[in-house]
């Protein structure tokens, strides 16, 4: 039987936030902003009452003090406004061509019907709910740098050297855990392990590199990673951190991810938009609707683009990927509905099809952009009384031609819950890379292997041999 210490140790291991340093600077900034806002409102309310009393008991000092107290929130607000204006002023000097939402002419809501899908049974077209900012149309991406290729003689299908140093798996965190993105310029997966250590995985030699990155590295592993081709950096959406592989440095850019006056900004999956060169992500409004936002890492500016029809957070409507071929964002929900959203106009096409809904905040769900579409593993659906994995033991991609989540490929380990820590699209070899870390406490599945599924053939390839095969 387990003893006292065993139980305490297991309890300690089950701590969702074992270290307070796992809390990101972004989370603290959001908390500080919320407290300050509510303090200001409370002060304003409280100061109205003494102001009335001071009329009954006039005295020079009391009047001056009460006037100051009445004005204090206004002064604080004006100071904050000046600060924000100053920051945005500097940003505008850096990139004056990017106007704010308020400066945009409000386009009339569109109800254009998509030519191909409008006649498909089970398909619905939703009008845009209000104005749609044309920033994703008006902004143009810079010329993309040449994408990396494997050097002559490289054999990406041969396992990497055995015994090499590997990332570490840590305790499960509700914050999202480990994340990876594919840097198309360097040809490496950028991966954050549970200790916020930055690693890269060379998909041509199948070798890990511990980067020992400098800068604001603490707490960067919160949320998902997106490689921004236009700016040649990798962005961690959860905390607003940016990794520059050229300088091997992390920088914290807090402003954009708080959003102007936004109280419930929940960055989830983000995708890089090759047309505008911006990162597209979503926010969930206080009434549980989904808003699209565009993020420009060069100016650290997050701009609201528009609200998506009747798509609701409570249905786990999540951004899963983007397809250049049809220029549509791909969303999934737990009610077997896939939504294709035109990022330029906001037109939304709802398709009733078995869908791996995602972005419920579930540990284990993974989504990646690969092969010009979205791939999802462990996405869930709601079958009436319980959440189940939509495609057990498989990873499925959305086929833009058939509007269905095929093809599906078998995941190594079947429907076990934790076969990998991150799934990343490798555009050099046109495959999905599945990454594990090393932690012997988590049993035989956590064995440090890296493997891949070829998106053309569906074949599985071992890229790094497990430590305990």
């Amino acid at each position, binding site marked *: *039987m*387990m003893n*006292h210490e065993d*139980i*305490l140790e*297991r*309890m*300690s*291991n*089950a*701590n*969702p*936030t*074992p270290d*307070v340093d*796992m809390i990101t600077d972004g*989370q*603290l900034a959001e*908390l*500080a902003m919320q*407290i300050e806002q509510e*303090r200001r409102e409370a002060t304003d309310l409280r100061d109205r009452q003494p102001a009335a009393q001071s009329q009954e008991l006039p005295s020079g000092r009391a009047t001056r003090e009460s006037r100051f107290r009445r004005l204090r929130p206004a002064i604080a607000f004006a100071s904050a406004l000046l600060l924000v204006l100053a920051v945005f002023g500097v940003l505008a000097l850096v990139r004056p061509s990017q106007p704010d939402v308020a400066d945009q002419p409000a386009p009339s809501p569109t109800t254009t019907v998509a030519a191909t899908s409008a006649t498909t049974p089970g398909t619905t077209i939703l009008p845009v709910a209000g104005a749609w900012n044309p920033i994703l149309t008006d902004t143009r991406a810079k010329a993309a740098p040449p994408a990396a290729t494997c050097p002559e003689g490289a054999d990406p299908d041969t396992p990497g050297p055995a015994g090499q140093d590997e990332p570490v798996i840590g*305790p*499960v965190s509700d*914050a*999202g*855990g480990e*994340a990876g993105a594919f840097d198309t310029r360097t040809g490496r997966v950028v991966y954050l392990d549970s200790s916020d250590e930055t690693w890269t995985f060379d998909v041509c030699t199948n070798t890990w590199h511990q980067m020992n990155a400098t800068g604001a590295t603490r707490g960067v592993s*919160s*949320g998902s990673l997106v490689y921004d081709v236009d700016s040649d950096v990798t962005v961690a*959406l959860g905390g607003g951190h940016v990794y520059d592989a050229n300088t091997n440095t992390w920088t914290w850019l807090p402003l954009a991810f708080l959003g102007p006056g936004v109280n419930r900004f*929940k*960055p*989830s*999956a983000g995708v890089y938009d090759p047309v505008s060169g911006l990162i597209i992500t979503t926010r969930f409004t*206080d009434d549980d609707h989904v808003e699209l936002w565009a993020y420009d890492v060069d100016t650290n500016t997050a701009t609201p683009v528009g609200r998506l029809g009747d798509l609701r*957070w409570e249905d*786990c409507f999540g951004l899963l990927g983007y397809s250049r071929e049809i220029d549509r964002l791909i969303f999934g929900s737990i009610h077997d509905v896939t939504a294709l959203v035109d990022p330029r106009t906001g037109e939304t096409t709802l398709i009733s099809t078995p869908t791996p809904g995602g*972005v*419920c*905040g*579930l*540990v*284990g*769900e993974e*989504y*990646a952009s690969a092969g010009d579409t979205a791939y999802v593993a*462990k996405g*869930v659906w709601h079958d009436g*009384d*319980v*959440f*189940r*994995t939509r495609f*057990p*033991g498989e990873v499925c991609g959305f086929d833009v031609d058939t509007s269905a989540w095929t093809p599906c490929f078998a995941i190594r380990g079947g*429907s076990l*819950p934790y076969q990998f820590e*991150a*799934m990343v699209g490798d555009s050099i070899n046109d495959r999905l890379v599945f990454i594990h870390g090393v932690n012997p406490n988590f049993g035989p599945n956590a064995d440090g292997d890296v493997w891949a599924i070829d998106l053309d053939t569906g074949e599985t390839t071992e890229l790094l041999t497990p430590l305990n095969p």
Partner: protein
Amino acid sequence: MQTDLADRQFREMYQENQRRVLAYFLRRTDATSARDGAAETFLVAWRRIDEVPSGDHTLPWLYGVARRVLSNQRRSRSRSAALGRKLADIDPPEDPSPEVIVLRRAEDREMLDAVARLRPEDQEILRLAVWEELPHSQIADMIGTSAHAIAQRIYRITKQLARDLERPSSRAERQIPRPSSEGGGGS
């Protein structure tokens, strides 16, 4: 208390304890509710700044407030937690199929499920001791008993958990996964 002094005291207290208070909530609820709860806790402290004890007593006092805030949150779930509310009514299936997803690593899930079957006050004492690493004397102050009594109680709690975890039915038990209300988590 003079306003400037109170402001300074609040800021110092906030700087000192912000991570621990936010972590307290993150260990017990989803990220959005955690932020709301931590904000509410510090707002209570701000309103009652002249009652906040100093030194080592500050954090237990904040945890005491946080505990009540969390309790209020759970009683009055807002509509933003509609998904959680919907799921709360779901009974676990008797024979869950293997494809039912699991939120945590199996061992952690099993442990947390066992803790969830304890009395609420025992759950909180255990979490304060193990997760918040609060000394027994400070937990005792919060609960209104002696440090020795807390030590004894934790010992009894761990024995109860050990028995519970050893039961075959406990090992086989699975919980229905419940999504947190926080987005993210993919790559």
